[in-house]
């Protein structure tokens, strides 16, 4: 879980930054994009209209230059039955037909001569007798030699037909160029322009309208409503602004203006701010939604990943704790993937294995070392004692005391055998007592009256095991440092039993005893080197090495009274 938190912080931060930026810049970007897009569209529309007019202009030029057209316009009423006239009519008709066939957006092509001749499309087409041409601006302009264009109007020149057209008109001059002989006009289907404007998609509520250079509406999707006074359009501001865009006075619409240099037409794209805002809101919703989704998906995925990483790590940690406590019997299961964690667990297992081996090795070495130390500490038969005993045997032999010689020799041989039998480290209390008994028997024979002894050991401790050669050195001490130095000899008592859960063996002498200071020093230092013998220090050390510091030797002594050594050993319980 702790791994998850930085993960999540990272994810939340990233997504938050992304969302804040997209949401805050969304509106601005949207408006700018919309403005650019609208500008492109109106420029394009204007370009398309330009090419239309250029095309019409070209057609007009063709007709204006046509000799047949000029000839036709100059025929007089009386010549209309001639073959020349008929031929001329056919040729003009053919020309018009060809032009109209190539361009299906051309409604009418017509010429009207000052001599009363006219031809609209073909000879069969009748002019509307009620059409008052003098009221039509395209006619007036062409007649006065100007380039006439009527951008959007109802063309009533053909009888019974009232189409909406864009009309281009020109004066037609005589072959010599000196005299104006008539007017030509081309009607383009107004729908071409209107559908062009409708095709431009400025959202659901946006629209396109066109003004001519005088500010007159050429196309507006709601022309009717504007003329009816229901709606107003910001035509004046459009004309004032020129190319570019501006907000309407109420701030609800954005006008994008494109003026054509060729035609002077102004194409205006209008987008509603409300729609842009709605779109921007929708985008914002979308961004937020995506952010929430990303967040939840990322959280989910990171929980999964974190679990896969942290679970084995947690296991590893738990195992480490075990190791800290000293339990090395651990083998972690490898989660089964080959990544850093897997390697780590593998290494951990190998390390624990190594540690286990090392510990075992150290344990073995320690045991070996202790064994050899114990060997070193183990008391040996004092050579003085051996010498003295052998001396005593010789002396007794000379005195022919056969019985005593046999007894002493057999005791000595028992002692020696015991001490040679080094294979066992531990013996029972009874064995140890037996050993001491043999030793004391020899000493008794040597000192005779000067030494008395008694052994009284409880049956309960006879089978208790204890270190070998512990009692003998202590008894030796009691003789040499206690009883021997006393005038008239003394007595040694060995007692044994169980006390407070411990096996206690006491060696009490009524010898010279020790003062407090000597007693204190007794267990403090290894005097083996000084004396060349195994001292009580070593005995004590051995016991403690075997059984722990609560066991060992305890001395009580006072000068002139005697010394008591207590040997404290574990008591294993009744059943043993």
């Amino acid at each position, binding site marked *: 879980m702790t791994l998850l938190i930085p993960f999540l912080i990272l994810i939340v931060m990233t997504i938050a930054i992304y969302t804040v930026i997209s949401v805050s810049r969304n509106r601005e970007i949207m408006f700018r994009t919309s403005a650019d897009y609208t500008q492109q569209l109106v420029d394009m529309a204007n370009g398309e209209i330009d090419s239309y007019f250029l095309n019409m202009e070209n057609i007009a030029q063709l007709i204006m230059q046509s000799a047949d057209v000029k000839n036709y316009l100059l025929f007089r009423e009386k010549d209309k039955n001639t073959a020349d006239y008929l031929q001329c009519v056919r040729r003009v008709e053919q020309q018009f037909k060809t032009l109209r066939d190539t361009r299906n957006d051309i409604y009418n092509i017509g010429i009207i001569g000052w001599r009363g001749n006219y031809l609209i499309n073909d000879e069969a087409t009748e002019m509307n007798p*009620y059409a008052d041409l003098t009221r039509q601006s395209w006619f007036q302009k062409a007649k006065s030699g100007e380039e006439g264009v009527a951008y959007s109007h*109802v063309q009533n020149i053909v009888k019974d037909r*009232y189409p909406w057209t864009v009309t281009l008109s020109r004066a037609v001059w005589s072959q010599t160029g000196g005299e104006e002989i008539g007017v030509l006009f081309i009607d383009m289907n107004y729908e071409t322009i209107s559908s062009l404007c409708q095709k431009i998609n400025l959202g659901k*509520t946006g629209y396109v309208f066109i003004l001519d250079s005088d500010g007159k509406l050429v196309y507006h*999707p709601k022309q009717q409503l504007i*003329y*009816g006074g229901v709606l107003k359009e910001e035509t004046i501001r459009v004309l004032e602004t020129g190319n570019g865009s501006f907000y309407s006075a109420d701030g609800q619409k954005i006008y994008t203006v494109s003026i054509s240099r060729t035609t002077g037409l102004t194409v205006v794209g209008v987008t509603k701010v409300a729609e842009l805002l709605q779109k921007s809101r*929708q985008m914002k919703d979308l961004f937020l939604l995506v952010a929430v989704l990303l967040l939840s998906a990322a959280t*989910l995925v990171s929980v999964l990943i974190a679990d896969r990483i942290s679970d084995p790590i947690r296991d590893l940690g738990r195992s480490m704790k075990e190791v800290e406590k000293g339990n090395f019997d651990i083998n972690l299961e490898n989660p089964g993937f080959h990544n850093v964690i897997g390697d780590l667990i593998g290494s951990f297992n190998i390390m624990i294995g190594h540690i286990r081996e090392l510990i075992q090795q150290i344990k073995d070495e320690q045991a070996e070392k202790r064994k050899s130390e114990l060997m070193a500490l183990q008391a040996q038969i004092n050579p003085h004692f051996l010498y003295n005993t052998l001396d005593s045997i010789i002396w007794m032999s000379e005195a022919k005391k056969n019985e005593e010689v046999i007894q002493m020799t057999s005791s000595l041989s028992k002692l020696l055998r015991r001490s040679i039998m080094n294979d066992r480290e531990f013996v029972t209390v009874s064995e140890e007592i037996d050993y001491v008994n043999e030793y004391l028997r020899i000493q008794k024979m040597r000192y005779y009256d000067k030494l008395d002894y008694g052994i009284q050991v409880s049956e309960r401790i006879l089978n208790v095991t204890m270190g070998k050669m512990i009692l003998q050195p202590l008894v030796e001490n009691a003789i040499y440092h206690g009883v021997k130095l006393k005038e008239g000899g003394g007595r040694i008592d060995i007692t044994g039993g169980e006390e407070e859960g411990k096996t206690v063996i006491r060696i009490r002498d009524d010898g010279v005893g020790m003062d407090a200071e000597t007693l204190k020093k007794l267990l403090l230092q290894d005097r083996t080197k000084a004396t060349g013998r195994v001292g009580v220090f070593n005995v004590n050390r051995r016991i403690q090495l075997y059984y722990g510091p609560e066991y060992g030797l305890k001395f009580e002594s006072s000068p002139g009274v005697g010394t008591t050594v207590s040997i404290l050993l574990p008591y294993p319980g009744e059943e043993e």
Partner: protein
Amino acid sequence: MKAEKVRSRLAGALLLLLILGSVLLILGLLRRDTEKTCRIIYIPKRKESNDFWSYVAAGARTAARENNCSLSIMSPEKESDIQGQKELILKAVAEKPDVIALAPSSETEIDDAIEKIRAAHIPLVYIDSETVKDFADVVVATDNVTAGSKMAVPILPYLNESSKIGIVSHVQGVSTAEERIEGIKKGLGRFADRIVGTVYSNSDPELAYRETARLIGEHPDLGFLLCTNEDASTGAMKAVTDLGYAGKIRMVGFDNSMEEIEYLERGGFEALVVQRAYSMGYLGIEKALDLAKGRKPIHRTDSGSSLITQSNMYRDENQELLFPFYPQEYSSQANGTE
């Protein structure tokens, strides 16, 4: 190991759910965009076989489209099919639209059906005509009194004490007819008493023809004929032409059928009073939308009318009105369903 598998499966399912949920949400977001904001049912007097009613419908469609509102048009076959309109009103009420826009074909006879609209608490807009009892929240119509008085304007210079004026009206008792006649009288002023006869065509050009012929028969020295709607105008004009009275009787027509326009162009009519039908439809639906949004627009809106003569008919503002230009998009929709 097992628990882990279950968990990863659970996570997979969760992820799938999340993706599904998000797809639905995004779809919902996009859908919200295309949803119509409101539903309006418009019941005109008749099908769009007549120019006037098709212009009204075109204006209505534009307003609906602009406001992203769904508009259903339920038209009776004929203007005189009052029972048919009543049935359509009941059908519309059953569909529970946000607003109903209605051009009542009778001033009194469809009251019971209109009461159903009121009972269902559906806001009601009258377009073009009204009923005697004012049931509607809003009325969008030509101010017929003003329109009627405009009809008098072109003949005023020719009037004298002995002039004889005839009126060919459409349906007796219908508000539009009566108000236009009232307007004509107002416009004529002191010459109002020169009206020698009023006939009714019941919005049938044939009947208009016969009634006009009858009127001329009764008053052979008739100098002026004022016609109060499209069918009355064309029927009367035909009768006058056929009886050889063309040029003798000065006529003023109403509305702008192609036939009337051609007569105007060749001088048959002194003038036409043209209602702004497109504006009427547009404003009617716009007001209906206001009602749907809970706003209370002003009770009565005049959609306007214009007096058009031979000399001003090709002016920008008038040719737009006389020859409404409908791009392909609208005309194709006119026959389709919405």
